[in-house]
């Protein structure tokens, strides 16, 4: 077979990917996105490419899998070798024989109508005959434990299962380089953890080279990584082992969040060295630092008692199902949100979080129970009437923005309400100032970054002066810098008296910013408590697909008496640093 021959010829090739003085500039850009990259990834290695958004890490991925220059055009100088072959002489199809890409959005990657068909997609394109194809699909789905779901449709699968299908869909081609583009972006913490385990197992089984593009370092380091390549502004800043990089303290400078346990130790004055093996808390000997960690502690009362404000939203025994007597999406939910609070609703995908949002906004009506807004029964209020109290910001700003210019977009809701033009102008200016968008007020929306668009959508809701801002995954897909920007901004809003309720499965967000976390699992409210407590409760963590915070693990491992107080201390210290 041809394949065998080529294997023989290139047998001594040990590098999987090699960039030599590689520069790339997108056609529409005035400056290169990648500058003079020199990078070698050896066969069988497992590396992480980290960096803030705009650092060029996704662009590197696009070069390796051939989307550059096949789909994204631009000017290339220098060389890129994949499996020893010059990619300048390969098209995207011959590259896809070597590199399998698992995209960030496993929904979008799901091309077929069923699991089996999706996994077969590459084989279909290779004109493999039906009997052989069926056999191969079965074998590959078995390796990712998805074979019982061959006939399932994408909407019947969980986020983690979809990712397994996506992985099978590229492994079916016997590729030897697997490229994961932000594999954790859309997954809840527990699913993210198993995704990392799956990647690790895949490497052990297949011996493939693994390249993971991510900015969520702590989560990726759940399993051993050989190297971390840190990028910023199109250049490689650092290329070293995780132990070395974590000890250097360089990550924070480039907007990458280091693992929380590392941060906590350095706050306590512990000097991190490679010999401590900071890449994993399991491999670290932390009991020596018990006293150092203890010394710093003040007694902090956790902030779980209700705030003094009046009740702005409350659920009283609310249930919801789509058909009468059908499966209850939400079952007997009661909680209340008080004015001025900042709280989070957490829970795994499919737990009923988005249904809860829809109920609050009045898009759907409860099958039983009562929703109160500002002390009055909301059942008779239309979507429009409720919007006076609750401002809803969707996850994806592109789904909300409908005007070309920023001013028009922000003022649209007021215009629809028939507000006078000079009043609109006044309120739009005020909202733009609050959101830090005033300098851009006359720009087209299309000129903004994703994070700025998010602000535009928040401004367009704020302008209607709601009492409660309801945000669906406000920081999804954001790197640490943008995440901090958005959250600091929301905190400012809160200090101006706006109540904030966020739907999220970002645990950092819950820990650092939410006063309370309301946790849903399988349609039931299982916990309503301070985030620190939620994220140290093994039962809640398990049921809601969350993950124990490594601060808690650290405190326990170091033998601290009161791990919760340790976490609260950490949070308040971070807050002080920010302000």
């Amino acid at each position: 077979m041809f394949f065998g021959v080529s294997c023989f010829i290139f047998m001594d090739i040990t590098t999987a990917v090699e960039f030599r003085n590689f520069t790339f500039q997108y056609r529409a850009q005035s400056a290169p996105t990648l500058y003079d990259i020199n990078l070698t990834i050896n066969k069988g290695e497992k590396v992480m490419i980290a960096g803030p958004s705009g650092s060029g890490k996704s662009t590197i991925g696009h070069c390796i899998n051939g989307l550059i220059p096949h789909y994204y055009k631009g000017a290339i100088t220098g060389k890129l070798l994949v499996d020893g072959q010059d990619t300048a002489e390969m098209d995207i199809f011959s590259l896809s024989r070597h590199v399998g890409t698992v995209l960030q959005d496993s929904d979008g990657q799901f091309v077929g109508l069923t699991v089996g068909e999706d996994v077969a997609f590459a084989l279909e394109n290779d004109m493999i005959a039906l009997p052989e194809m069926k056999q191969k699909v079965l074998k590959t789905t078995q390796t990712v434990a998805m074979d019982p779901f061959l006939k399932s449709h994408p909407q019947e699968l969980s986020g983690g299962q979809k990712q397994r299908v996506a992985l099978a869909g590229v492994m079916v081609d016997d590729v030897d380089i697997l490229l994961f583009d932000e594999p954790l972006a859309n997954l809840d913490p527990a699913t993210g953890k198993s995704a990392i385990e799956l990647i690790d197992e895949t490497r052990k089984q297949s011996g493939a080279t693994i390249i993971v593009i991510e900015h969520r370092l702590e989560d990726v380091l759940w399993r051993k990584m050989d190297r971390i390549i840190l990028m910023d502004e199109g250049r490689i800043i650092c290329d070293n082992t995780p132990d070395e990089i974590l000890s250097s303290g360089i990550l924070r400078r480039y907007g990458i969040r280091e693992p929380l346990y590392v941060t906590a130790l350095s706050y306590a004055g512990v000097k991190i060295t490679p010999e401590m093996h900071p890449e994993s808390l399991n491999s670290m000997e932390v009991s020596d630092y018990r006293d150092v960690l203890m010394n710093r502690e003040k007694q902090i009362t956790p902030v779980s008692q209700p705030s003094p404000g009046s009740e702005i939203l409350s659920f009283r025994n609310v249930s919801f199902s789509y058909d009468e007597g059908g499966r209850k999406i939400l079952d007997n939910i009661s909680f209340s949100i008080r004015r001025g609070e900042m709280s989070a609703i957490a829970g795994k995908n499919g737990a009923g979080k988005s249904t809860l949002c829809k109920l609050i906004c009045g898009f759907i009506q409860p099958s039983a129970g009562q929703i109160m807004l500002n002390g009055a029964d909301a059942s008779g209020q239309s979507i429009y009437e409720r919007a006076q109290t609750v401002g809803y910001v969707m996850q994806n700003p592109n789904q909300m923005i409908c005007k070309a210019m920023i001013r028009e977009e922000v003022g649209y809701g007021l215009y629809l309400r028939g507000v006078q033009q000079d009043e609109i102008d006044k309120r739009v200016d005020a909202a733009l100032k609050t959101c830090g968008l005033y300098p851009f007020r006359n720009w087209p929306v299309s000129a903004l970054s994703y994070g700025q668009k998010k602000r535009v959508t928040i401004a367009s809701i704020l302008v209607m002066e709601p009492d409660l801002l309801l945000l669906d995954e406000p920081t999804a897909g954001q790197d640490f810098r943008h995440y901090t920007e958005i959250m600091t901004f929301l905190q400012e809003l809160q200090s101006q008296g706006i109540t904030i309720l966020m739907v999220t499965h970002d645990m950092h967000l819950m820990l650092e910013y939410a006063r309370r976390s309301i946790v849903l699992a399988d349609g039931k409210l299982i916990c309503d408590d301070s985030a620190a407590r939620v994220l140290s409760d093994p039962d809640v963590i398990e049921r809601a697909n969350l993950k124990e915070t490594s601060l808690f693990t650290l405190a326990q491992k170091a033998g601290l008496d009161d791990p919760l107080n340790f976490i609260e201390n950490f949070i308040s210290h971070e807050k002080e640093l920010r302000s």
Partner: protein
Amino acid sequence: MATSTKILSYIPRETPVHRLCGATKLIVFLVWTIVCMLSYNTFVLLGALVFGIIVFRLAKIKVSEVRFVLITILVFLTLNTIAIYIFSPEEGVKIYGTRHELFRFSSRYTVTQEQLFYLFNVMLKYFTVVPIALLFIVTTDPSEFASSLNRIGVPYKISYAVAITLRYLADVQSDYVEISQAQQARGVDLSRKAPLKKRISGLIGIAVPLIFSSLDHIDLVSNAMDLRGFGKNNKRTWYSERPFSRADYIVIAVTIIAGAMALYVTFRNGSRFYNPFLPK
């Protein structure tokens, strides 16, 4: 999912109609459409209509599941019929060669038995084709549909494009619902209470984000397809392709024979029209 039925998307069920190969259904659909479009023979059309309803029942598709499309088509059909009358009030007389006037609006707009009969036949034609077209779409798995188009000679890239459009129609519809809810919360009023002009501008406010987010989606899907080698060869195989069963052969044979007979009946007198006004 019991949430809401999506317009024009595949409704999987276990029925003899669903079990037929996509290619078989495509052939039936094509023969059916050709015959019904060519023929103005009232008996052929009535026969097709009755048969269409029987197949519809056989597929266990409820009218409520396709109500929206049916109503839309009915509205256009009515408009179409009115337009025919306005532009050509004497069409029936021309075709059937006689004139039985019932009453008149003006000297140009008379109402004749011939014109009414002609319009009746036009409506009937649509009533025979529409249910079968709908049925074809909702009982055929989009990927199998693509493979059958490819089987009858349509290039696979085009076949796949058609199928993937059908496949993502459902996604676009749920996006539409989400976007429209969020826009309603901002004050877009789409209810009947709002004046038409407001409703239209509201719909534009929903269409813009819908189009942009769909374009993002298309980008993503086409990347995902390229990365897995779509378009690398001149041909491709199909995972969802099913071999023809005996039922398929029988259905195809019956369709072709019935189609030929229908055409024979239609053209027997040298005219496509059945003419009840002919003197006996």
